[in-house]
Each structure stands twice: as structure tokens, then as C-alpha cells.
């Protein structure tokens, strides 16, 4: 009975015990990890052995079958298929070195995995290597690809000449040029290239049951993938023949000799995604999270942040209890101060942005003077989801780009469950520089994840993102190259200006156009001029691929990955520039849809702010005071102002409508003047800058002879305050979602406009 109430005040210390327990647990986890590793390793080993056993058994069986047939003197009457690859085999059969049955098995194997007939014959033990060398001695010397293609009648001499003249103008590989001109199919070209290099081609019915995988990074870097294991060597598929100096390295990795077979880009793409799909997926979803958890939005609120919010709210509550009006006054003072600083700052930025040198500008002559030969390969990433309808327009818009097609690497990123788009794309027979990538299904299902996935195997030195419905100006890629060439090394990102082609569809799209004009024509150039972090816009941001990969590309957990990336680039000491080239997008034309899209953006800005403000002091150290201020203006004010606005709208209504008595208490003395100046002057200036922004761009285009917009758009700027109301609604929704489902991607439905509307507009003008 005594033991029931023996109070013990001091037990074992929480901290020490927890630490101790944690250590123990970590050890346990490490052990479990080791167990997993061992299992994996052993399974792979066993699999490899099983594979070899199965292969051996099959061959023994085949051989005994053949022996039986010979013994029964059952002669095979079927003729061996004729054609290039059959020739040497037939010769061997006719000379009695091998039997027709042996040849059949060899050809079967070749068809399945690829490789050269001779090598397979040797591997299967039908002929000795010495015999082979003897038989091959009459092989032709290496000739030029073009000549060979003409000789083999893949292309005509005229076609070759045309391709060569392209090459003289734009540089690049002849093969790519031939493909971009669609003069022959990739399979034919690679067949020829393989013959030229005296290596084999990838088989047609490849069955990727390979017991050995190269380490992913090495495979990606070198474009090599194991496709089959023979008894004494591996068959590896390559996009380009492996340079000799890499032979030793590869053999060491494989632990056996190898034979290379050539695969087209599409085949290689397919091999990689089926072989390394999981690794690539993991890389695109969690690389940033693992390598720089401090920059990943996978955690929305950190514990510290929750504590700070709790402390702030608690002190406000305590303050309210202690002194209601005093507390409200202080809070109001802080908010007004915030408004005031943000307003002043925003206008300073806009003023700077209105200078002509705030954007990089190039004349058509300067662009025409670019040497195409110096242009690098350019990757275009087009993430899309259930947008099959806009694909024809997409292709048309991409084809309009003025850039050597042989140097393009267009990667269409579609989701696994988007069957309609998948089917449409596979039926389309796109030119060879298009690659369709199916992003495996996994969470988070976001655009940045798809982009990361597409970037892994991007061939370009530079990359850009376009949405499916985008219409980039034809000279955009060249302008960007001109810009990169003229800018210092630290500029790794160039943002083109976004605007809308369906601006005149309805009032909402008109407002949206005004907002975008303002944002991209004035605000972002001002930010760039001030050398502050630029929150990138969703599309048409051009990157140096190496840097982009280095900083782990996009954050798949952030729903405005673009804005976040802008900040992270700045953090890493890189810079972003705005270029005077536009991409035309489709503005959201339905209010509900618009609110969804906007709430996603606002949520993303909140996410971004929370991520980088986990440690404000560190942020200041990383991006300096100027960058910090710019960060607050762009990333904090953008979502916060629409959240605060409704409160003050209500106050104004109460004051002018009912002269509510509590309001003067909130705005004593100078605060009244500050708030008044903001209300009258700042609101006016915001409206005016909208009007000015849109006038600016229309005027600018008219001077250049382009007629995208009508001046009739300008007057709608005066009604923009109604748009602010919508913005506040979206902001409230966003704040709610940030807490309830932070990674949910509010999908925007595109294709709500008639795509040929811009043509109609042009006719009208």
C-alpha cells in the first residue's frame, strides 16, 4: 500500500535518456539497413547465377536439339532470311562451317538483343575467334557516313547535299541534321552509323532481364546501359560509340568484357526509364530534400516556426487582454509600416524597371548576326498533364522557333496516367528531336517533379521550360543565347516576359493581362536592375543546365517551384536577367479556375517564404540585406497584402459609410496621415502603374510593328481594384490550404479559349 503514493520528484533526466535511447535506436536502424543491403546484394548475386544457369541450360538444350536433328538427318528447308545481316552467316553455312540451325539460333539471339553476328557466333562457340578474323578480312574500310548512306540508298545525293549545306550554316552532327530534316528514320540512320563504326545495332525485342546494372550516375554520364549478358561478355547499348579510353573503366565496372550496340535516342530513353526509372524518380522527388533539407518545402512549418507563430499569437492575445486598444494600435502601426515600406519599395522598383536598359534588348540585326554554328544544343522541357488538345498547337509553336532543329532536344513530359496524351503522342510520329518521356506515377505529382525527371537525361547545354499552350516568340532561343553570351558568367538564368494571347476574351483575362504586363515589363526588370532575387515566372525560364543540376533543380514539394528556384539561384550566388522577348500564354478565363490557380501561386509564395525564413539570420548572411529586403517585398508582400487588404477595406467602408467610432482610435495622429496617403496615393499609383504597364507594352509593340494587343485594353486597368478582391479571396483560400494540404497542386485547366483567337484578333486589327 505504501508504494502507491511514493512521489518521486527527480527522475532520470529527459535529455540524457532521450539521447541515449536515440543512439541505441540509430544503431538498430543501421543494423536493419545493413540487413536490407545484404539482402539486396545477395538477391542480385543469386539472380546473376540463376541467369547464367538458365542461359547455359538453354544452350545445352538447343545444342542437343540440333544434334538430334542432324542425327535424324532432318534437314531444315526454310531459307535463312536474306539481307545485310544474313550474308556472312549464309556464307559460313554454305562453306559448312556452321549449320543452318546454328545460324537460325544466332540470328534469333541477335534479333532479341542485338550485336554483331560474328561476335554472337564466337560467343556461342560455333566458330573460333581465329576463324572469324579470317572470314572478316574482306570487310570494307571505314567510309564517311554521308557517302555510305547514299551508297546504301537511304538518302539521295541531293538530300545529302542539302543536309551538308545546313551543316555548313548551322553546324551540328550530320546525322542529327538528316533526322531533323526527316530524310530518314532514326533506325535506318543508326543502322548505318553502327555499320560505319563496325559495331552492332540494338535488338528489336529486347527483354531487359539483366542481372547487372551499372551505377546510375556512371550510366547517365556516359549514356551506357547493360541490355544483356552473354556467357563471357555483356551487351551494352550506347547512343554514341564508347570512346576507347573508357573501355577499361567500363570493363572494370562490369567485371567482364563487353560488346556495344548502337541505340537510337528514343530507344536509349526507353531503356533508361525502364531500367533506372525508380532511381530517376527518386532523384527527381527527393534529391533536394536529401541533399539540402533546409531548402526543401517538404516540411511546411518547422517546429521553430510554429513556436514563433504561437508566441506571437499568444503575446497578441495577452496584449489584447491587458490593453485592447493599445495592442490593436501597435499591431495596426506595424501593419501600416509594412504597407508603407512595401508600397514605397514597389514603386521604386517599378520606376527602375521603366528604364529601357532594365531588360536585355537585342535588335533583329544582332540576332541575325549570330553564328548558328556556335549555338549549343538546347533542351526544351514541356511538362503537361491531360492537355492532349493543345499538342498540335504546341508542336506548331515549337516548330516556329528560329533555332537549328538538329540542335534541339524537345522533351515532352507526360504523366503515366495521362493515357489520352500518351496515345496521341505515340501516334504522331514526331521528328527525332522530340522525346516523349512518361513520368512514373508517384507523389508528389507536381510539375517540378516532371521537370526534374525530364532534366536528368537532357542533352542540352541550356534548357528552357514551356507550358503546353505557350507560344514563345520565334527568336526567343537565339535572343537568350545572345544574352548569355553578352552577360558575365554568374548569369545562369534568363527569364523571358510572359503575356497572354487571349487577353480580350473577357474582363478577367484583361485584368490578368494587365497584371502580367506590370509584373514582367516593369517589376521584374526593376528587381533585376536592383540585383535582388528574381522570383521566376512559371515558364520560359532559360537555364545553364550544369548549374541547374548542381543546385538540384526544382523543389518538387513547392507549388511555385519557379519562384523558389529564383531565390535558391540567388542564394548560390547566381543571377537572373530579364530579356525583351515574350512568351504568349493562355490567361485563365473562368473565375473559379482563376482562383484555384492564384491560390496555388499564393500558397507557393507562402511556402517559399517559410522555407527560406527558417533562419532569417542565415538568410541575411546568404543573400545580404538588399537581397533580404527584395525577398520580403516579392515573396512576403505578394501573399500577405491580399490577406490584409480585406480588413482595411472593411474599416474604410465602416468609416465612410457609418463613421464607426472605433476607427479614429486605430489611426491617431501621424498614423492617420500615413494610412491616408497609402489609401489615396498608393492605391492610385497601383492602378496607374497597371494602366501604364499595359500601355507601355502595347505601345512598345506597336512601335515594333507587332499587333498583339489593342489599345482598348488599357481602360480596363481602371477597374483593377475588383481584381484585387478576387486576389484576396484566393489568398484566403491559399492560407487555408497551406495548413490543410500544402503540396496539393491546383491544376489549371487550359484550352478554355479558342486557340486561333489571336488570328482573329490580328484580322480585326
Amino acid at each position, binding site marked *: 500500500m505504501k508504494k502507491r503514493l511514493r512521489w518521486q520528484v527527480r527522475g532520470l533526466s529527459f535529455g540524457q535518456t532521450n539521447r541515449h535511447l536515440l543512439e541505441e535506436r540509430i544503431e538498430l536502424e543501421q543494423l536493419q539497413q545493413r540487413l536490407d543491403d545484404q539482402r539486396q546484394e545477395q538477391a542480385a548475386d543469386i539472380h546473376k547465377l540463376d541467369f547464367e544457369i538458365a542461359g547455359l541450360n538453354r544452350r545445352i538444350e538447343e545444342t542437343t536439339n540440333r544434334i538430334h536433328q542432324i542425327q535424324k538427318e532432318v534437314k531444315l528447308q526454310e531459307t535463312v532470311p536474306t539481307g545485310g545481316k544474313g550474308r556472312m552467316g549464309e556464307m559460313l553455312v554454305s562453306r559448312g562451317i556452321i549449320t543452318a540451325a546454328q545460324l537460325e539460333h544466332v540470328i534469333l539471339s541477335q534479333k532479341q538483343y542485338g550485336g554483331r553476328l560474328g561476335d554472337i557466333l564466337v560467343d556461342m562457340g560455333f566458330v573460333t575467334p581465329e576463324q572469324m578474323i579470317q572470314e572478316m578480312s574482306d570487310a570494307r574500310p571505314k567510309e564517311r557516313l554521308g557517302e555510305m548512306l547514299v551508297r546504301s540508298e537511304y538518302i539521295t545525293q541531293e538530300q545529302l547535299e542539302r543536309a551538308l549545306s545546313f551543316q555548313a550554316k548551322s553546324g551540328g552532327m550530320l546525322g542529327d541534321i538528316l533526322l531533323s530534316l526527316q530524310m530518314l528514320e532514326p533506325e535506318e540512320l543508326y543502322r548505318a552509323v553502327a555499320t560505319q563504326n563496325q559495331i552492332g545495332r540494338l535488338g528489336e525485342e529486347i527483354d531487359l532481364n539483366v542481372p547487372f546494372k551499372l551505377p546510375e550516375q556512371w550510366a547517365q554520364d556516359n549514356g551506357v546501359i547493360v541490355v544483356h549478358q552473354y556467357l563471357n561478355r555483356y551487351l551494352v547499348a550506347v547512343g554514341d560509340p564508347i570512346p576507347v579510353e573508357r573501355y577499361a573503366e567500363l570493363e572494370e565496372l562490369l567485371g567482364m568484357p563487353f560488346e556495344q550496340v548502337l541505340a537510337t535516342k528514343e530507344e536509349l530513353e526507353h531503356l533508361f526509364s525502364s531500367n533506372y526509372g525508380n532511381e530517376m524518380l527518386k532523384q527527381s522527388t527527393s534529391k533536394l530534400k536529401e541533399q539540402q533539407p533546409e531548402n526543401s518545402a517538404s516540411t511546411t512549418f518547422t517546429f521553430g516556426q510554429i513556436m514563433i507563430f504561437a508566441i506571437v499569437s499568444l503575446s497578441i492575445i495577452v496584449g489584447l487582454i491587458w490593453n485592447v486598444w493599445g495592442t490593436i494600435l501597435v499591431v495596426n502601426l506595424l501593419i501600416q509600416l509594412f504597407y508603407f515600406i512595401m508600397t514605397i519599395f514597389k514603386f521604386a522598383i517599378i520606376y527602375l524597371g521603366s528604364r529601357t536598359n532594365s531588360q536585355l534588348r537585342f535588335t533583329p540585326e544582332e540576332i541575325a548576326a549570330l553564328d548558328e554554328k556556335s549555338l549549343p544544343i538546347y533542351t526544351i522541357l514541356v511538362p503537361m498533364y491531360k492537355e492532349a488538345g493543345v499538342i498540335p498547337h504546341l508542336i506548331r509553336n515549337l516548330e516556329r522557333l528560329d533555332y537549328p532543329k538538329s540542335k534541339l532536344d524537345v522533351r515532352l513530359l507526360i504523366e503515366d496516367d495521362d493515357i489520352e496524351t500518351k496515345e496521341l503522342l505515340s501516334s504522331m510520329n514526331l521528328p527525332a528531336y522530340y522525346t516523349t518521356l512518361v513520368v512514373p506515377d508517384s507523389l508528389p505529382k507536381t510539375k517540378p517533379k516532371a521537370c526534374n525527371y525530364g532534366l536528368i537525361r537532357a542533352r542540352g547545354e541550356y534548357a528552357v521550360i514551356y507550358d503546353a499552350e505557350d507560344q514563345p516568340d520565334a527568336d526567343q532561343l537565339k535572343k537568350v543565347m545572345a544574352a548569355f553570351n553578352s552577360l558575365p558568367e554568374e548569369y545562369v538564368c534568363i527569364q523571358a516576359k510572359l503575356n497572354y494571347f487571349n487577353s480580350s476574351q473577357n474582363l478577367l483575362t484583361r485584368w490578368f493581362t494587365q497584371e502580367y504586363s506590370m509584373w514582367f515589363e516593369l517589376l521584374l526588370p526593376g528587381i533585376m536592375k536592383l540585383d535582388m532575387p528574381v522570383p521566376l515566372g512559371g515558364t520560359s525560364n532559360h537555364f545553364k543546365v550544369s548549374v541547374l543540376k548542381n543546385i538540384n533543380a526544382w523543389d518538387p514539394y513547392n507549388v511555385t517551384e519557379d519562384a523558389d528556384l529564383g531565390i535558391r539561384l540567388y542564394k548560390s550566388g547566381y543571377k537572373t536577367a530579364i530579356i525583351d522577348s515574350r512568351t504568349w500564354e493562355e490567361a485563365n478565363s473562368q473565375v473559379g479556375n482563376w482562383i484555384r490557380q492564384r491560390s496555388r501561386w499564393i500558397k507557393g509564395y507562402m511556402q517559399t517564404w517559410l522555407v527560406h525564413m527558417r533562419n532569417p539570420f542565415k538568410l541575411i548572411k546568404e543573400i545580404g540585406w538588399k537581397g533580404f529586403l527584395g525577398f520580403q517585398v516579392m515573396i512576403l508582400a505578394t501573399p500577405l497584402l491580399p490577406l490584409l487588404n480585406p480588413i482595411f477595406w472593411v474599416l474604410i467602408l465602416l468609416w465612410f459609410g457609418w463613421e464607426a467610432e472605433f476607427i479614429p482610435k486605430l489611426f491617431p495622429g501621424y498614423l492617420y496621415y500615413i494610412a491616408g496617403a497609402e489609401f*489615396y496615393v498608393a492605391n492610385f499609383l497601383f492602378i*496607374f502603374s497597371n494602366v501604364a504597364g499595359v500601355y*507601355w507594352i502595347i*505601345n512598345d509593340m506597336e512601335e515594333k*510593328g507587332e499587333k498583339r494587343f489593342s489599345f482598348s485594353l*488599357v481602360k480596363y486597368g481602371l477597374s483593377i481594384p475588383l481584381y484585387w478582391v478576387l486576389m484576396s479571396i484566393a489568398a484566403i483560400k491559399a492560407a487555408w490550404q497551406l495548413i490543410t494540404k500544402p503540396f496539393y497542386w491546383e491544376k489549371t485547366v487550359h484550352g478554355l479559349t479558342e486557340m486561333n483567337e489571336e488570328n482573329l484578333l490580328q484580322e480585326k486589327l
Partner: protein
Amino acid sequence: MMNRKGKLLLFILMFGMEFALGFYISYVLGYMHSDAISRVANAFYVLYSRDPHLGAIGFVWNPLPSLMELGLLVFYPLVPALATYGLAAVLMSSIFAALTSVLLYSSGRKMGIGAGISLTIALLYSLNPFVFLFGANGLSDAPYIYFIMYTVIEFCFWLKSRSASSLILSAFALAMAFWTRYEAVPLGVALAVGVVIAVFWMHRNYYSTGPTLREKAYKVEATWILLLIPAVFSGLLWIFFNYIIMDNPFYFLNSEYSNVAQSGQLQSDQSFVELFNSPWLALKFIAGKTLWYSAPLFAVLLIRLFTKRLFQGGTLIILLMFVSVPALQFVLLMRESSFGWFRYFMYVFPITVAWLPYELSLVRDRGRKLAFAVVVLSMLVTAGLLSYAMTDPSIAPDENNFINMADNEHLKEQELDRSVGAWIDSNMNDGTNIMTDSYSAYNLLVSSDNLKRYLITSDYKFETALNDPPGNDIDYILIPKPLPGIPKSAINKLYPNMFEHGNEWATLYHDFDGKWRLYKIKKWVAPQG
């Protein structure tokens, strides 16, 4: 860099000369135009009255000049003469006069005209004796002229380059002009018509075929919005402020202190009554006054005639802007509410001069030298004409006052007002409550060394105290002699006989030359009625 230094030098030089003259007139001679000193007074009340608040700036005159003086008056405790002698106004006007010189010079340079020509035009304008006087006298004309010249110059840039930024700058300058003087309204109308002309008839070479008529109309609409919205918004805001603070949206137009009310006295002037009743006479009257300033316009027309551009859109635009100034006076005369002062017509001169750099930039090579010669001649003629006008009180009475102090009635009034202030300063305790109407007492209020002693019109308690002075702890009431034709102050209006006969609760305490009277208020007596 040299250019920048040059501009700074020009500014300092002009400012120095203007301020020196202004200082001499207002501080040494002690004269300041009543419009100028009352604007200083308005700013002064905002900062140093019993209830410092922005509303005290008053709602009759456009508030920008007072607002700017307000900034200067922050230093009143250190330099009392800023208010007492109205030096804040002199500073303001001489700063703007100097800025105007620099503006003219640099707009010439930006238009691609040589430094020599640009500087000559700037100096010929700024050193014109008439213009020079307005840089020194502290009136709101100096900032107003600066703003309208800015407006016109940026508008010209727009005509030349069609860049949106010029339009924006022009728009804000026009809004600033409105916050300075109401005369900006007709100029805005003229610019609006100018936009139509420019868009429809001053067609520029486009890469492709020009826009359709419909699109041109949209462009006019858009350009109007951009160019006029700041000014229109300013106007609406001003009406709104009048409404919420004075409970009368058109207080600035029709209150007892407004121009309309003040010009009531004109009804007793026979020559004005004739003008009011005959549009033809009014036109002749206006044309006569305008002609004094018109030489540069004739120069422009002459240049256009000889370069075969007389019938181009530009001619119409400059004519419109020019005519907008006398047109307002015509309208006001027809509505019987303008004094038609000589200086009201002067704005045609800066408008034309602001156009000159653009005009010269359109003429090439040898033609430019000739055109420049014509311009110089016209400017010299104007200088001569205006100098003569100033010496003749029948042409320019206001301006004549500045150079003829001996006959200056206003100077005498001001001296008296100051002496009243000084008497009160030396004979009254700091704690006494003196009620007075600031609309008539501004001169003595700014010269007082303790403004808080006075209960003035803009103070919160004034309305209540006016209806019951004894019940509101008022010790004295100071009132001016009511004069026919001049608007009555609030006190004289409510107690019309008080100045002559006093009141049952007020006994005469002191009389100042029969112009001002100080009444002592009895305490604790219930007011009549």
C-alpha cells in the same frame, strides 16, 4: 559629367539671383503679395496653430504650394523670418524658377540641340524681367510654370518619340500643376485634343500598314487615360476632401473665400460689367492682354511657314495649348468671376517657350540657325514689352507694386498688420485667448511670436466659440474693419455691427488706426439669443 556640373551651376546661379531679389523685396522692403503670404500662413497654421493638423491648410487654394512651404516651415523655430517675412514662399518660388532654367536647358539638349542654343533660350526666358520677378515674389506661379513647362516638354518628347515614359511624366507634371493652380484644367483639355491630333494626323512610319481608325480611336482613349488620369484623380480627390472635411464638395469653388466670392466686388466696377455683358468686348480685352506675351508664338508660326509645316498637326497643338489660357479667362469673364489680371495671361509665354526646343529640333542644319535667330528676336521683344508693361500700373498693377513701393497700398496694410501683431505680442500675456479670423488676419498671425495665443478659423473649437465667445473662455476678439467688396470674415458676418458698436459681452479694448479693433470679452454672461 560636365553637363551635370553645368546644370548645377545654372541652378545655383539662377536660384542665387532670384532669392537675392526676393529677399530684398520681402525682408528688406517688407512687401509680399497677399496671395503669397496667405499661402505661407496656411502652411504655418498646420504646424504651429493650437490644433496642428493638415486640414488647416485650407480648402480654397490648391494645396501644393502650401504643402511645399510646410516642409520649409519646419525650420521656423530656427529662422522665424521664413514665416514672418514669408521667406518660405520666396525660397519655394526661387527654387522653381531655377529648376525651370535647368529644365529648359536640358530639354534642349535632350532634343538634340546644341548647348549654346539651349542655354541661350533658357537664359532669355529666365532673365526676362517679368518672369524673373515671379521667381522672386513667392507666388504660386513659379512652381505652376515649372510644372506646365514640364508637362509641355514631355508631351513634345512624346510627339517626337511616342515613348510611354514621356507620357507618364507629362501626366504627373500636369497633376502637379493642378495641385498648384486650377489653370491646369484648360491646359489638360488642350492636351486631350492634342492627343487626338497626334494619333490621327501625325502618323508615324510603322513597319507595316497603319492601324485602323477604330484602333486609332482606342489609342486616343488609352492615351487620354494615361495622360489625364493623374490630373483627373487629383481633381476628384480634391472634391472629395472638400466634401469630407468642409461638407461641401465644391467648397473651393463657391465658399465665401473663393475666387467667385471675391470677384463679387467686380459687379460694382462699371468697366467690368461692360465686359461681362459683351463677348466681343471681352474677347478684345483678352486678346489685348495676351498679345503682350505672344511674340514667341509668332516666331513658331513663322518658322513653320518657312519650313512648310504650317499646316501640320503640330501647329494646331501649340495653338490649342496657347489658346487654352485666354480661353479660361474668357469663360470666367462670361461667368463674371475673373479679375482678368495681367498675370493671368502670362502662362501662354512659358507654354510657347517650352515648345521651342521641340520646334527647333524639327528644323535641320542652316534652317535651324535662322529659326534660332527668329526665336531669340521674339524673346528679346517679349522682354522689352513685359518690362515696359511692369512700369505701367494701368497695365500690370500687381507687378508694378513690386517696383513702385512708394505707391504700394498693400505694403502699408501689411506694415499695419504687423504692427498689430507686434502690439499684441508686447501687451498681452501668453495665456490670453484671442479669437480672430485667420482669413483676414494672416499677416499679423505669421508675424506673431506666439500663434497659440490665437484661436483661429481652422482650430477645432472655433465654430463653437464663434457662437458663444464668453462661454468658451475667449478673452479678446480681434476683427478687421469690414470693407465693401471684400468678403467678410466669419466673425464680422455673424456680428455685423460689432466692429462699430461692440457687443453687450464685448467692450472695445484697443483700436488700431481704425483698421483693426480688439474687443475684450466679458465673462460669465449668457449670450443673447
